[in-house]
Structures are given as C-alpha cells and as structure tokens.
C-alpha cells in the first residue's frame, strides 16, 4: 500500500504540495515513486524560476521511464532540494520528506483545486 499523508494536497499527476505559511514544498507521492521504480535523476528548475499550476517544471528519471513533473501550484521557486543531485534515490526511501522544490505561492487559493488525502487515496485505487 502506498503511503498517503494527511494534511498535504495532491495532484492527479501524482505530485504533492505541503503548505507552510506562504510557501509550498512540492514533490512526488509515494505511489508515484513506487510506480517509477528506482529514481536515478531529478531534473529541477533553478531558484527564481516561475512555476505555473498544471505546467511542467522538471522531470524525474527512473530505471523504467522519464516522467515530466507538473507543478500543483503557481509561484516562484525559492529553493531546490540540492541533496537530490547526489542522491536521487532518496525519493524512493521517503518521497514526502524529500521534496523537490520550495515555491513562494502566488495564489494560495489554488490548493482548493487539488485533492486531499482521502480523495487521492480513492483516485489511486484499482
């Protein structure tokens, strides 16, 4: 069973965002890392890049496939998780702790378009 955390917001494309004040931490879900298999590379934007909800901001490459990353929220990238450069596999160990980008939200109300934990759990049921 994939792990799903309460309190996070989830996108259909299997990214999560964890809101802390005016910032959001964006990463991929535990379900996404399970489906991808061992992650070998994470292509991240640069600090100060703008991201838009629903649009691509990077890519994650695993031994199975390369998948685009879609930002669940809009805003400006204020930090990227540089640890993933040296250790992309950290995402497989704990997808939620190893977020990919930290975004200063331009429109915090956008999270209302995302799923909560219960809705996401339902969406990945087979």
């Amino acid at each position: 069973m994939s792990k799903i955390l309460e309190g996070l917001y989830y996108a259909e494309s299997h990214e999560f965002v964890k809101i802390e004040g005016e910032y959001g931490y964006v990463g991929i879900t535990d379900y996404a890392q399970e489906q991808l298999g061992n992650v070998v590379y994470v292509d991240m934007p640069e600090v100060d890049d703008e991201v838009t909800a629903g649009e691509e901001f990077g890519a994650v490459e695993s031994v199975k496939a390369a998948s685009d990353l879609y930002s669940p929220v809009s805003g400006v990238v204020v930090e990227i998780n540089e640890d993933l450069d040296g250790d992309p596999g950290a995402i497989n160990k704990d997808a939620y702790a190893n977020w990919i980008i930290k975004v200063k939200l331009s429109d915090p109300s956008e999270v209302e378009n995302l799923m909560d934990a219960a809705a996401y759990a339902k969406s990945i049921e087979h």
Partner: protein
Amino acid sequence: MNRTFYGNLIFELGKEGRVGYSLPKNEFAGYDINGIPEGLKRGNDMMLPEVDELSVVRHYTNMSNNNFGVDTGFYPLGSCTMKYNPKIDEEISSLTSFTSLHPLQSADTVQGALEVYYNLQKSLSEIAGLSEFTLNPFAGAHGELTGLMVIRAYHNSRGDYKRVNVIVPDSAHGTNPASAAVCGLKVVQVKSLADGTIDVEDLKAHLDDTVAAIMMTNPNTLGIFERNIPEIARLVHDCGGLLYYDGANLNALLGKCRPGDMGFDVMHINLHKTFSTPHGGGGPGSGPVGVREGLEQFLPNPHIKKDSAGKFYIDSDESALGAVSAFMGNFSVMMKAYSYILTLGKENLKYVGPFATLNANYIKDSLKDVYELPIDVVCKHEFVFDGLKDKSKGVTTMNVAKRLLDYGFHAPTIYFPLLFHESLMIEPCENESKSTLDGFISVMKKIAQEAAEDPEMVKAAPHNTPVCRPDDTLAATHPIVTYREMLNDNDA
C-alpha cells in the same frame, strides 16, 4: 564483472613478434620524410595488436556469440519491427560495383545507382499511395523533421504564417513532439480514448487556423488501427491543416492499405525497419519522405530525375527545401530496400502486413488468459499486455522479460507505452513459423506458472546468460562506459 565471458581486448591477446602473415618487403623504408611537416608526422608507434590468425578468429567468433540478433533467435521487441532481413539483400548491397562508388562521381558514371534510387522512389510512392519520395533523410526522426519542414514550407508558400501548432496524440512516439519542437513548431497534445485511439471530440477542440499538421502513427503505439481516420482527415483538412503519417508501424499495413488513400499528405518510412536492414545497433538508417500531389516542389534538394532519353540526372530546385543530408542519404540501406521489394515482388509484398497481424493476434489470444490484456480487440502487428494477470506474487514485467532470456528469447519491449504500469509490448513480425510462435507461447505460459510457484526464482532471473542481472540503478547513476574504467572497477 566476469571477464571470462567478456574475454579480452584484441590488444591484450597480442604478444610481441606474433604474426598472422608475412608482409611484403617495405618499399617505402628509404622514403625521405623530411618534406612532411612536423605536425603531420606520427609521434608514437602505431598501436596494432600482434596476433596470430587463429587467435583473431576465436576472439571475434566468441565475441559474436555473446550477441543476440534475429539470426540467433526470436526477437519480439515491440515497436521496433525486428524482422528477419533476407541475406540476398545484404549480398546485393555489398556488390562492389555499388560499394566502390564515390558520391562526387559525375552522374554519367553512376547511372545504375541513380536508376536504383529513381526506381525505389517510384516503388515507395506506389506502396504508400503518394506522389513522390525523397530518399535523402538518414533515419526516421530525420524524416519526421524533413516532413514537418515540407509542411511548414507549404503553409509559408501560401502566406499562411500563423500555422505553428502540431497536434500529437498522447500515445505517440517521443520523436513526434521532439521533431516538431526542433522544427520550431509548437506541440499540442490530443487525448486518446481508453482503447488508445484518438479522441475525436478532443481533437475538434484543437482545430483552428493555427494548426500546421497532425502527426499520427497508424496503427498506433498500442497496435490498434485508427478506425476514425477518414473523419480525422476530413476535420484536419477542413481547418487547413495537413496529415503527417509516422511510418514507424507501416509493417502492419504493408501491401494491404496505403497512407495516401487514408488521407495523409506527408509521411516518412523507416526503410531500415520495414524494408530489410539489420537495425538496433545505431544505424545506418534511412527515412525517406513522401508527399501527395501538389507538395512535390517542397521536397529537399537534390532530386534524381529522368530525362526524355531515359538518362538519370541529379537536379536542384530553388523552390525546394535545401539539402537535409550530405549527398543523398544512406545508399546501402536503399539498395537493401530495393532488393527486398523486388525479391518479394508485388504479389508477395501484400502478405507482409497480414502475416505480421496474424502472428501478433495468435500470440495475443493464446496468452490472454495468463497475461493482462487491457485492450481486448483485434490488433495489428503488435499489442500490449499489462503484466501478468496474477500479480499477487509481486512478479513484474521486468522479471518476466528477464526470465525469457533464460529460454533463449529476446525480451519484448517493456514499460512502453506509458499508458499502462506494466507494459509488455510484443511484435512478432511476419517471418516467424508457427513452431517458433508456439515455442514462445509455451515459454510465456511456463513463466506465468513459475511466477506463481517459485516467484523468487523468476525475480532473480536471468540465470543462464553470460551476464546476469545488472544493478539498473547503479548502472544509471554510475555508468562504466570504457574498458579501462571496467578494469579499474574490478581492481577496486
């Protein structure tokens, strides 16, 4: 890593003074090299291995035994059309009267080669139902780019500059959006339905006067024929766009139906896939581009033409696209394709698509009780399973593919297309006998049984290959790409 199975480099086999034959007397020993500029003189001795003939023969024979090709066994690698390439095609293309030609020879001295080129253009036009072909592009993706450049040149010639969008289905091969982007066009994705075919309603929403073209593979990536192609062609043409046919899956239709008749305006053919060149090792390829009537003038320079006296000449035209390749493409691949078409002939070429389709459906229906078949319809030349039906033991598509190697079969394409999590894509091609197909089917069933009874054994496969299971993650994050690195790795 086991060096016994990799053997050594030919250089490591050498011993000083060991020779395979005696050289004639060196007539140049007394040659005065003082006139040669310093920068052009060799600083070190040549690195040539000193080996005897038997060592050379054993070295290369053993090395070739570590390879697996369609000449060694069944190779159902979906999406790749790894069909048997008749040996006569290799022989014909190796004739020295063709291999010793120089691309700068005058047209007068290469009439035979130009005739082959000209006739192949005509044959492909007939097979595709189009008006004219250029054979210049070097491979499939190069053909896509050339085809899109032709489409852009057509719109521009009409002063229609706002057509910058290329519609690509979400199930398309990755080269389609890449080619559009390289051509400076924008990619618009159209959704597919549950059966993998294009969602016509979603398509309608994208159709306006910004559409340059739609790129389609038919049958599509799942091996399913786009039944709505007449309607799609009408809709796209009505909005002023063109239809591009990606020839990746042409083998399914070969000799049976023609992209031109379906309404496509521009297409490329992967000669190396569909028309007999051993491929998969990185080349050489050939990606001829064909166009319907009215678009011929945009095909890239140079063109091969025939004058009224029956003489062939090389022509360049100012209204055409510039050259897309050095000279005129990969000639040896064209020779093989021409030989392939002539040896089969019109009466036999028409069986290629139907036999490829029959073989794929035979395997699909024989295995669908034990493997998950997400789209249960009659397929064309290939189809996709979504892993084992019984996934309770945790045996994945990767494990099944690895276990197949133990039984002497090449693995199918896995984890593509991305529409399913456990994609296992099988394309048997037209040449395989029923005995081979039955052998593959029984092994696939056996693996399903093993997965239920002894899953750990399947998960650790392959057990009988020279190299067993490499660590995929380590290979991707810390690749060892040179022999020297491998030696250092072994010492460490």
